[in-house]
């Protein structure tokens, strides 16, 4: 299947699929982080000026700036399961390429190399790498062996209408069975005209057209999965 997923092979002999995130979503995440860092910076500046005015406050401020510049992403990614604030809000997550959460080593590497990805301005090099790399990794990700993926949300499985199960007129391969089940689970989410059209396309299997064909497909699906009797 061509779906851009990154398949992780586990010692248990199964593959786990994660979806790498592209440049736009990562850009939004970065922008949110930029604002968050600015807010933190101003807040600290304000508090420090109140607490210790003069040179000492300025000195501590520079330490804070240093931490915001270099440590913000690293600390958040390590302690919050691969998410900075922006990644959390945009539903992204950094993982190691073997699917495990990032540790110090990976996070430090990928975030130090941000400097290079940022060149010549606003992630020029990083964007180039994201567009060219098949898993949309920027240079820092490639060197650190990490990948930014969509954080999986628990899926709500659609409820299927209860219909009388029917046997299939002829045997389908597992791939075809999966396509059929995928169709009946998702067909109700598309516009009505498109539903009719899809029903027409299934004519070779059902011998019917439009909505009637779809109903027949529901019955076949119920027969396939062994659903409850109507």
């Amino acid at each position: 299947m061509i779906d851009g997923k990154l398949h992780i092979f586990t010692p248990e002999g199964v593959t786990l699929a994660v979806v790498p995130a592209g440049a736009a979503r990562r850009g939004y995440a970065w922008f949110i982080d930029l604002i968050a860092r600015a807010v933190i910076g101003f807040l600290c500046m304000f508090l420090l000026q109140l607490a210790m005015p003069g040179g000492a406050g300025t000195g501590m401020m520079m330490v804070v700036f240093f931490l915001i510049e270099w440590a913000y992403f690293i600390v958040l990614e390590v302690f919050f399961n691969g998410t900075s604030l922006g990644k959390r809000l945009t539903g992204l997550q950094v993982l190691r390429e073997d699917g495990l959460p990032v540790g110090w080593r990976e996070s430090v590497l990928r975030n130090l190399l941000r400097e290079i990805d940022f060149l010549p301005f606003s992630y020029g090099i990083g964007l180039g790498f994201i567009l060219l790399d098949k898993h949309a990794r920027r240079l820092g990700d490639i060197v650190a062996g990490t990948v930014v993926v969509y954080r999986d949300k628990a899926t709500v499985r659609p409820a299927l209408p209860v219909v009388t199960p029917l046997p299939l007129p002829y045997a389908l391969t597992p791939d075809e069975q999966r396509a059929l089940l995928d169709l009946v689970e998702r067909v109700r989410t598309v516009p009505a005209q498109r539903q009719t059209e899809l029903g027409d396309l299934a004519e070779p299997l059902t011998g019917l057209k439009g909505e009637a064909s779809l109903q027949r497909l529901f019955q076949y699906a119920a027969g396939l999965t062994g659903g409850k009797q109507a």
Partner: protein
Amino acid sequence: MRQHQFESRHAALWQDIEQELASKQPSADLPVKYRALCNTLAVARQRGYSPSLVQRLDLLAINTHRLIYSAVGTQEHAFMRWVLRDFPRLVRAEWRVVALSLLVFYGLTLLVGLAVAWDHELAYSFMSPGQLANFEEMYRGGAHKLARRGSDDDVMMFGFYIMNNVSIGLRSFVGGLAFGVGALFFTAYNGAYFGVVAAWLSRDPATALNFWSFVITHSALEITGLLLASASGFKLGSALLLPGRRGRVAALRESAASILPMLLGAAMMIFLAAFFEGFWSARTDIPATAKFIVGGMLWLAVIAYFCLAGRKRAT
């Protein structure tokens, strides 16, 4: 087997694992359950069960995979072991890039310094007269405060040293990725800069004493730290230039992962140096002799640390 049969047969297992994932303390037989889960996932995929079921199992498997494999055995005294053994060993093992970095920095310092000492006019080709006069002003006279007025300014300069110097260290590592050019530039630039300033200020005995007593202590940590940082940058560059029998990306990954502890050690040294530079080096109530003694001892300690620490075999 029909999908519904399959689901009702294994529903208990899946729910069990979901609960384990939600609880903070997974039970000891989670790996057994996980293998069973992987089995059901593989079967569901192979038999073409509905994608939403496969997706659910996939997600369950990913989360359990993370939980099981990211558990790290507790390492006792990992940090101390790194300080006492692994860090100096790494620096010795990477002696080639460390030597390159030392050579570039001290070579240029010596070259430029001797040139300026031989002909003072040469200093003007590196820096503007205003800058040189500024340096002279800073270190002149008995009551040199290095442009500071009390402990408030000490803290400010401490903050500045951390922001500035540690950033330079990190940048020279990152710059190493550009085939080592970035690291080379930072090292060479700092070497030449230090050479000019040192030679210029050493002309006048008054400024010479103030200058050398100021730099001797923290430079042991700061210069060594900066040089180790650029050495780790050289390591990145060398992985790109001379990948050996590996692909360039593979070489880069391997080198980056292995050299990173050296960079972090270097950053820690520069960080420590900021304490000396902020709160010790600039104090005027300490006689220069005391500074030379402490600074000399620190230099010896740093050299001895990298030459000798961690040589004993682990028992």
